[in-house]
């Protein structure tokens, strides 16, 4: 226990000191990792605990980002209302669409959510009164926390990471409790779960909504951090990143999405001096991980007590 505590204190100290020693560029990437981790958590717990693939996450990420940007830039409302509107729209859309499509399984569900993303993308481009079309929306202001403007990567880092950990902690609690048991029962044996009075239709819809909410929060943070959003940010490639973060980390433990997200955000960047070749190397790394480590890179160590 003592060793455990020393390790956590050392971890927190390292986290706090990191931005002071790292170049700003890497702090920036670590902020993106946190944003990616939140959306990735939404995909990861849904896939790992309930066996539901959500490839529409970049769409919910877009809804969060556009809602925030529109409410603040066009309507001049506060950042909190922007966040709330994004969450509300994502929840309603996820519930309305999730209800019919979540009766699908396996490949069909994966395809349905991917098709949903294509629809979102077309709408983001088409509804230019709302989204600015291909021009996007610029000038999303920085948020301030406690009267302190988060206008540099370092400041944002100290805001976004505690928030990320808090969100992970909340979601991990859900997966540890009764709901988590019900989810895993539903994943491993749908019939037995039904006998135990797990209403899988309602549970699946609720979890899908929770996943979409995480995507939306992630999108709101992204809009505030970057200040400019356009359709480019919400494509299939983004969804693949949201999927990769938890898959690379390992699906058994929701927390593994954090190292996964750091990997996914940093590796392409480390390889980027090579030019576009980095995409090839990244693709190869991706294939090797999927083929050789089906349980994720951290699979062996990433089993949490409740989650298997």
């Amino acid at each position: 226990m003592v060793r455990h505590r020393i390790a956590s204190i050392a971890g927190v100290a390292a986290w706090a000191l990191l931005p002071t020693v790292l170049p700003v560029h890497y702090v920036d990437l670590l902020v993106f990792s946190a944003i990616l981790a939140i959306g990735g958590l939404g995909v990861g717990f849904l896939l790992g605990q309930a066996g539901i693939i959500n490839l529409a996450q970049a769409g919910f990420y877009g809804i969060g980002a556009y809602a925030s940007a529109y409410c603040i830039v066009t309507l001049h409302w506060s950042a909190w209302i922007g966040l709330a509107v994004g969450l509300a729209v994502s929840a309603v859309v996820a519930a309305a669409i999730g209800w019919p499509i979540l009766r699908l399984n396996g490949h069909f569900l994966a395809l349905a959510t991917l098709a949903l993303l294509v629809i979102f993308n077309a709408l983001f481009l088409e509804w230019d009164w709302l989204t600015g079309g291909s021009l996007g929306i610029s000038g999303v202001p920085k948020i301030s926390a406690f009267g302190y403007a988060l206008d540099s990567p370092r400041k944002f880092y100290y805001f976004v990471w505690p928030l990320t950990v808090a969100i992970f902690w909340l979601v991990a609690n859900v997966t540890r409790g009764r709901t988590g048991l019900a989810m895993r029962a539903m994943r491993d044996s749908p019939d037995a779960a039904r006998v135990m009075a797990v209403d899988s239709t309602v549970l699946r819809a609720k979890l899908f909504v929770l996943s979409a909410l995480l995507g939306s929060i992630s999108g709101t943070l992204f809009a505030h951090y970057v200040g400019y959003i356009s359709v480019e940010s919400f494509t299939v490639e983004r969804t693949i990143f949201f999927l990769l973060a938890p898959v690379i980390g390992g699906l058994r433990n929701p927390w593994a999405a954090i190292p996964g997200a750091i990997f996914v955000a940093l590796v392409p960047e480390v390889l980027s001096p090579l030019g576009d070749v980095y995409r090839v190397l990244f693709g190869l790394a991706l294939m090797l991980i999927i083929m050789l480590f089906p349980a994720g890179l951290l699979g062996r160590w990433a089993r949490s007590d409740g989650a298997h």
Partner: protein
Amino acid sequence: MTSDLVFQVLASGITNGFVYALVGLGLSVIYRGSNVLNAAQGDFAIVGAMVTVVMLDRAKLPYAVSCVGGIAAGALLGALMERLVVRPMLRRKATDDSMLLATVGLGFLIAAVILVTVGKAPFFLPQFGGEKSVDLGNVTVQRHALILIATAVVVVGALALFYKSTHLGQAMKAASIDPEGATTIGIDVAAMRTATFVLGGVIGSVAGILQTPLIGVSFAMGIAVTLKGVAAAILGGLVNPMGAVAGGLILGIAESAAVLTLSSAYQNIAAMALLIVIMIVMPNGIFAGATRRGG
């Protein structure tokens, strides 16, 4: 809205429909032969088209030779995919989910390789039969569109004949329906699976080459092409390759209806919404009653 316009849009919908049909046909052939839903099928089409472009524009080879090269590249890619990705994963008893993920990853990798080797810009191929068009009543149809449709019909017919009357085709069918039984009578099931992927690669690259004169080809298009093909294949019932043809046509016509009644931006929305609805309402495709699983 004039009826001429309606026919014109419908004609282009049908042309697109045959492309979707071919992509769906490739998907369906692979799915039936190996139970792998190949998310990289669209990338087979992109590779086939890109190799043709490179051979034609950069190596200055004749168009016909370039097309053969493109198709050969598709076949080779199919074989490589089976040997290097699918077979090792099956040996490890990978789940369906991780297999699907692997094909998504492969699509990403193929797109990256094309980006590095050929570049970002979109490319076009010359139309088959020149830039000429043919008048059919009130509708003007490009000669290329007619050749495209004819080629698609020939591919479909040849495939049906191949499965029905050739030794290899029947062996491939047997290996997919009952792998153990097929092994007992001396069929090399793994080799048949390779052959299935080669066939999927050939059909995919033909689709890619045919659509490039109309919409061009660029490195990141693969996933969009895959999704249209998936929609066509699922509409027709995934295990029934011929159903993909009807599925592709329905999809193409539904898209043109959306273009006519809403706007061209709704073409993709209509196609994807149709895909979702069909999966929910008719998961076995529109011919569910008429076909037999695996047959």
